[in-house]
């Protein structure tokens, strides 16, 4: 569809009608000042084509060529008439009215990103792209979002757990280190104990020092006193007086003892004995004298006894008839025989009398014949009664056994037994049972058959009862029984009497025999008595009592004769002994010069005298000796006293008898002795101390002076204190070790760490699964877009890339309602319409609407009306758009009207179309048309500066060429998309030149370009190897930049610091300045802030640094990962898929180049 003529008769704001005539096919530039009616053209067109309601006040018409036919359309208020070839007809198919903005674009439309048509276009494109499915909705439902801070919490938990473990380990290590010191502590404790002991020795040594000092002082004082003070004790005057007194006493004693000596010697002479007699000898002679005296007494007594015995003998003789002088010859050698005879005679006589008495008692008690007859009669009666009672009671019938008589039964039993016996022997032992049964049968029958008839038996019994015996009262069982008991009683009594009579008869026979024996013995005794009487010459046998008296008298006579003989013998013996003793004593006394004693008393007196003389001699000699000793002792005392007196003076170094000198000397002795004692005491103490030190092996201490000892004491005190501390510490360590061993602290922490690791692993798994989901969705999306990309979007994307020098790529952002976005080819970051500059926004919507217009209009392209649509574009972009419009016009045979008030636009469009090889635009000067005033005053006004040319790289090194075209320094930190293409085409600067000449300078621009169907990209890839590798090189650069950025974080500039809200206004400027000084290195900035040593950071709060650090870490400004070195970085890049698409040498060259460029910068 092409407008050939457009006439506007009436339109609000148009005061006079005007028309555009002879409109051509291509681009028309309608130029004119504001309010001249440029926009009215659009309004009129809108009213004509889409019956805009605002067209109620419109009157306009147009002539249109459409599909080779001539159409006209007229709008007159509400009247709207279409004609084809002069015939009124229905309007041709046109895009829906809501799409009219696609064809009628003005600045306001393009600047208004929220217009209904734009959103509608975007929505329809999006739905068309997605095939009815919302991938993003599915993504939001099924794929976890993996943001920048993904797994940060889990990582922190792991770090915290690891930190806790490390902390616990450090604590344990510290404890272990302390435990290692236990030996040392023990050593310290032992040293302390030793020090404590040695300290006592040092104290002793210090005491010794004091003692020695004191001893030295006292010794000097002592030396100043007379030496004699040391020999005396201070009591010498007393001693002197005592000695003199003793001397005097000794002299007196000498005189006394000399007198005593003389007296003793006189008494010795008086004793007449030459030597004293032994006491034992004297005692023996005294006893002999006494013995002689006692012997004399016994001799006198013996003679008295002899006289008495003689008298007894006379008396005894008289009893038996003798005279006084001639006693009878009667004697009895053995008086016992007489007594024995008397006892036997008495015994025999008594025995015989007793037997006779017994015999008399037993006579007259024999069992008579009558008694025997009565007894036998009773027995017969009793037997008869028993027979009567035993008679059997048959009841009057014969007893039968088994139906047989008793005899028959007995016979049958015997037959059966015999038969059983035969069978048992012949056949089987079991038949013996039959034998037994037969025998039992026969015996039973036999026993029964032996009984008599009762009546017969009773009668027989009654007949047998003796007639002279009382019968029972009646012949009944009771009476018979009663009578039988009486008769049995009588029989029993009779039998007992019989037995007793028989026993007495036997006893009487025995006694009679004994009596005979007794009588025989009595006769024998009587014979012995007669013999005895004969021996005593008695005329008869006297009675027993008489005979006893005679025997006694004979015994007394015999005893009197014996006693008289014994007494006489004793007298004779005493006489002999008496004479012998007298003679012995007499000889001894005469030998001593004494008289011969005549009787024991004289002898005793002489012996006593001898004893006295001997005692006198002994005592005198003792006195002599004692007096002699006392005399010598007294003389010795006298000499001793004289010597003592002399010694006192000699010891005092004085002349003998110098008492005055002695008195003077004694005045100093007390002090002398005090000094001596003190010095001695000191010496003792010193000795004790030295011995203690020696025993402790510390003798050396005794040689140290006081200062050394005090230093040693201080040192030892220090060691003791250290030991106390060590003991405390040792106990603490032991307690901590015990606690550490019994706890589960580290075990729990390790488990917590493992749990945290497991959570982190789960998180990673989820993250990877989410990324895998993202990846799948992206792949599906890309694939779907590739296969299903709507033509309108593809066209719009190409146009937008073209309009923006491939700086941007068109996208649709589902998160903002499906609106369009512009994705920077430098950074990959998408910008919404409200984030774009006015020009960029206009370019985007222009591209979209042109593309959509193409899609919506169908086969016949509608004219495009652009009302100052490029007003916001810079000259370069204006040029690009204008070229595009020219190409669109040419390629699509589309009529384009560009309405502008800027005269320069006319020339720009003309040059652009010329550069693109398009027909020049038709210029409609609306000012001239309507007001007669030309819009363009001169051609000079329309001239614009030509675009800068790109220099040729021939002969230049990459460095030189980069400097020439002002390529920024290589910096991997920004996104790789913004890197200059020089760093990818280092080896083909001509390709670079061509790209730069087309304003394609960055990697991002190239990637955008390469995705479009721009002929430049295709031609370059056809012509140069480097260009063919550009996609792979760009991906390699992507890996390099990402790897290089690891651990480096993003630059922290003022904006980042402000956005953190961590730094107060007061310090914001200072912190921003420091960040700049540090090259925007976040890590170093935090270090400086935390140290607070920078002069700009006075009173800066550490918490602010922590807050800033947290923000920077969360937002990626701080990267905790380690920085890769060249080797690791290149190794990782070489392992990437991009590297596999490139020749190895190219890879290596580029990677080393980039590393060196970056290193060179650093």
């Amino acid at each position, binding site marked *: 569809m092409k407008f050939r003529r457009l006439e506007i008769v009436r339109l609000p704001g148009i005061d006079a009608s005007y028309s555009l005539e002879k409109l051509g096919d291509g681009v028309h530039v309608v130029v004119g000042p504001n309010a001249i009616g440029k926009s009215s053209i659009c309004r009129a067109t809108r009213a004509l084509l889409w019956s805009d309601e605002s067209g109620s006040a419109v009157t306009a018409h147009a002539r249109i060529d459409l599909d080779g036919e001539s159409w006209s359309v007229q709008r007159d208020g509400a009247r709207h008439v279409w004609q084809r070839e002069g015939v009124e007809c229905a309007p041709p198919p046109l895009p829906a009215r809501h799409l009219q903005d696609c064809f009628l674009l003005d600045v306001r439309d393009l600047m208004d990103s929220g217009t209904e048509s734009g959103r509608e276009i975007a929505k329809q494109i999006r739905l068309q792209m997605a*095939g*009815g*499915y919302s*991938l993003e*909705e*599915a*993504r939001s*439902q*099924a*794929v976890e979002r993996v943001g920048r801070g*993904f*797994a940060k919490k889990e*990582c922190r938990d*792991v770090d915290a757990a*690891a930190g806790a*473990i490390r902390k616990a380990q450090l604590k*344990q290590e510290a404890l*272990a280190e302390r435990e290692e010191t236990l030996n040392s502590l023990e050593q310290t404790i032992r040293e302390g104990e030793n020090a404590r002991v040695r300290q006592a020795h040092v104290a002793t040594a210090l005491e010794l020092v004091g003692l020695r000092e004191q001893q030295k002082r006292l010794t000097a004082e002592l030396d100043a006193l007379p030496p004699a003070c040391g020999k005396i004790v201070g009591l010498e005057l007393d001693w002197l007086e005592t000695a003199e007194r003793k001397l005097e006493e000794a002299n007196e004693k000498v005189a006394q003892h000399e007198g005593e000596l003389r007296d003793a010697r006189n008494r010795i002479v008086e004793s007449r004995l030459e030597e004293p007699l032994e006491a034992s000898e004297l005692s023996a002679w005294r006893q002999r004298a006494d013995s002689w005296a006692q012997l004399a007494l016994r001799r006198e007594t013996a003679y008295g006894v002899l006289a008495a015995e003689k008298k007894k003998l006379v008396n005894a003789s008289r009893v038996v008839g003798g005279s006084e002088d001639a006693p009878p010859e009667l004697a009895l050698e053995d008086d016992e025989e007489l007594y024995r005879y008397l006892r036997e005679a008495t015994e025999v006589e008594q025995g015989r009398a007793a037997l006779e008495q017994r015999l008399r008692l037993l006579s007259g008690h024999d069992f008579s014949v009558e008694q025997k007859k009565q007894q036998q009669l009773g027995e017969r009666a009793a037997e008869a009664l028993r027979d009567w009672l035993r008679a059997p009671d048959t009841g009057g019938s014969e007893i039968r056994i088994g139906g047989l008589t008793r005899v028959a039964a007995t016979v049958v039993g015997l037959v059966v037994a015999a038969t059983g016996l035969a069978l048992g022997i012949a056949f089987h032992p079991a038949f013996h049972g039959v034998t037994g049964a037969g025998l039992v049968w026969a015996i039973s029958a036999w026993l029964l058959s032996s009984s008599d008839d009762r009546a017969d038996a009773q009668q027989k019994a009654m007949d047998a009862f003796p007639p002279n015996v009382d019968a029972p009262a009646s012949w009944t069982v009771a009476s018979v029984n009663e009578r039988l008991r009486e008769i049995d009683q009588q029989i029993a009594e009779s039998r007992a009497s019989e037995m007793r009579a028989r026993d007495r008869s036997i006893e009487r026979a025995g006694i009679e025999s004994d009596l005979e024996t007794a009588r025989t013995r009595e006769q024998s005794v009587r014979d012995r008595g007669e013999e005895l009487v004969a021996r005593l010459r008695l005329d008869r046998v006297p009675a027993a009592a008489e005979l006893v008296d005679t025997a006694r008298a004979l015994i007394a006579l015999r005893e009197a004769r014996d006693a008289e003989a014994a007494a006489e013998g004793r007298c004779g013996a005493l006489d002999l002994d008496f004479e012998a003793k007298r003679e012995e004593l007499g000889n001894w006394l005469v030998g001593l010069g004494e008289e011969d004693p005549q009787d024991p008393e004289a002898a005793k007196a002489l012996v006593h005298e001898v004893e006295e003389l001997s005692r006198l001699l002994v005592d005198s000699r003792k006195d002599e000796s004692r007096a002699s000793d006392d005399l010598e002792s007294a003389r010795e005392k006298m000499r001793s006293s004289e010597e003592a007196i002399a010694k006192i003076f000699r010891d005092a170094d004085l002349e003998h008898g110098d008492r005055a000198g002695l008195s003077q000397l004694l005045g100093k002795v007390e002090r002398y002795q005090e000094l001596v004692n003190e010095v001695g005491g000191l010496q003792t103490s010193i000795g004790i101390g030295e011995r203690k030190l020696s025993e402790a092996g510390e003798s050396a201490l005794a040689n140290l002076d006081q200062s050394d000892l005090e230093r040693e004491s201080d040192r030892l005190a220090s060691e003791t204190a250290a030991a106390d501390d060590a003991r405390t510490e040792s106990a603490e360590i032991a307690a901590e*070790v015990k606690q*550490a*061993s*019994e*706890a*589960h*602290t*580290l*075990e*729990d922490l*390790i*488990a*917590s760490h*493992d749990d945290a*690791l*497991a959570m*982190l*692993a789960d998180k*990673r*798994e989820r993250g*990877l*699964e*989410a*990324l*895998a*989901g*993202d*990846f*799948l969705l992206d*792949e*599906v*999306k890309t694939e*779907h877009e590739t*296969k*299903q990309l709507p033509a309108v979007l593809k066209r719009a994307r190409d146009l937008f890339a073209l309009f923006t020098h491939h700086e941007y790529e068109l996208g649709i952002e589902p998160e903002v309602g499906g609106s369009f976005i512009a994705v920077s080819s430098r950074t990959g970051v998408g910008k919404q319409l409200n984030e774009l500059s006015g020009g960029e926004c206009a370019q985007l919507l222009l591209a979209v609407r042109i593309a959509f217009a193409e899609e919506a209009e169908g086969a016949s392209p509608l004219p495009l009306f652009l009302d100052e649509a490029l007003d916001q574009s810079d000259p370069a972009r204006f040029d690009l758009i204008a070229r595009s419009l020219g190409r669109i016009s040419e390629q699509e045979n589309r009529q384009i009207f560009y309405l502008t008030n800027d005269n320069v636009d006319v020339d720009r469009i003309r040059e652009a179309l010329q550069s693109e090889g398009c027909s020049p635009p038709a210029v409609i000067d609306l000012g001239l048309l309507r007001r007669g005033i030309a819009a363009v005053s001169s051609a000079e006004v329309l001239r614009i500066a030509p675009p800068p040319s790109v220099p040729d790289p021939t002969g230049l090194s990459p460095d030189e060429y980069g400097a020439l075209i002002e390529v920024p320094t290589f910096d991997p930190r920004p996104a790789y998309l913004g890197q200059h293409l020089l760093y990818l085409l280092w080896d083909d600067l001509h390709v670079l030149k061509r790209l730069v000449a087309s304003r394609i300078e960055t990697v991002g621009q190239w990637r955008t370009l390469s995705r479009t169907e721009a002929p430049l990209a295709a031609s370059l890839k056809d012509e140069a190897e480097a260009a063919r590798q550009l996609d792979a090189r760009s991906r390699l650069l992507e890996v390099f930049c*990402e790897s290089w950025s*690891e*651990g480096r974080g993003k630059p922290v500039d003022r904006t980042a610091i402000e956005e953190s809200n961590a730094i107060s206004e007061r310090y914001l400027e200072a912190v921003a300045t420091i960040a700049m000084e540090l090259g925007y290195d976040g890590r170093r900035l935090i270090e400086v802030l935390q140290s607070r040593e920078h002069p700009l950071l006075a009173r800066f709060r550490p918490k602010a640094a922590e807050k800033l650090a947290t923000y920077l870490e969360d937002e990626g400004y701080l990267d*905790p*990962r*380690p920085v890769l070195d060249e080797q690791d970085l290149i190794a990782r890049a070489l392992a990437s*898929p991009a590297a596999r698409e490139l020749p190895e040498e190219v890879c290596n060259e580029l990677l080393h180049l980039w590393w060196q460029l970056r290193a060179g910068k650093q």
Partner: protein
Amino acid sequence: MTKLLAIGDVHLGTRPSGVAEDAADRGIAVQRLTPAAGLEAAVRLATEQDVSAVVFAGDVVESTNARYEAFRHLEAAVLKLLAEGVTVLGVVGNHDVEALPRLARLIPGFRIVGAGGRWECVAVEREGRSVCEVVGWSFPQRQVTSSPVADFAGSSLPPAQPGVPRIGVMHCDLDASGGPYAPVTMGELARTGIDTWLLGHIHKPSLGDTRSDNPGLRAGYLGSLVGLNPKEVGDRGPWLVDLAEGETSLTHVSNAPLRWETIDLAIEPDQQPEDLGDSVLASVDQRIRALHARGVEPSVLALRVRLTGTTRSYAAIDAWVGGRRWSDITRTVGATTAVVNKITNATELARDLHELAKGDDPPGLLARKLLILETEGAERDALIVRTRDRLRTLADASNFAPLQDLRDAADPLADEEITRALKAAGSSILSALLDQHEPTRRGEGAER
């Protein structure tokens, strides 16, 4: 016949983590589930079995907690064994290279075999005569990059005594291609002439595994004494080694107080989340009874449940799993209490991916991706590589650097991990996408 008790990695000074968040509230004393408790059980077993010696294969104590908390338990165990007349031997592992020799010096009678990285032969005696010989080597430092067995032939070990069996003990990385933990090969062990090698280091027991390449050689890991984390599943405990001339029998005694298990629970396509709790409980009960039937009665059975099968309620099940509505599931049978440590959703959508993949819309394109993962090939590899490139930044992020210290840490960028993540995420997204067009789903009701 002589008996030994062999104990693998104990790691005294640690305790299993993550049994249940509220273990104490459920009456579970985590202090009775520790390696120390496992060691007590092993000591009781040694006494009951009247063994001649107890042999530790390294990593007896956790180096980070060796000095105090671990030492107490080791000392108590060793002293009890010594009091029973049991010889106690051990080699040093990479985890206790400093700690174990020091502890051994403090516990008279605890003998380190091969201290300082040399080969040593120690005779185990009983009643005055040698009953077996233990040949061992100990880590001299934390890392040993060469094979210690390479020096075996040149070592000055005495010749074996006639009639006295000889076994080998060491802490090493078996069949590893290099690495810092004493890498050795099975072939090297076979050439030592010792036919039984008790190894420490890897926590998964493998001593009972048969090896076709060296059929006469019995070498493998004793495994950890107690499972220290949810990945250490299955039987854990010491090994009874019965030595006889020409015949050695090995018996793994599963007496660890804590047992980890992972069970797959297949759900029905129409099963709803509210029924899942009962299904899990039934499965747990069944697992406990199966263990008891084997004579294995741990105090605590900690389970990880993996929901498998296909479901029409993927999003709801995912929400049930993610919402941890299963966390209070507890079951006690006899002396065993089971808790659920984690439930993961490994179900798949009950949709015909092939039918979906016929379309060019997003579900169709996504279904194609999921189908690509089903079949090995260049296309699958390329998808994994692209995903790995995408995930690498996050996987390598410094936040996750601590995970490198995890025991048996899996490579998050390994093919199988990426495949799993893609399948899980893909199923979730596909479910969400299809929910947007619920009435017009294609392939509805079709199950694969």
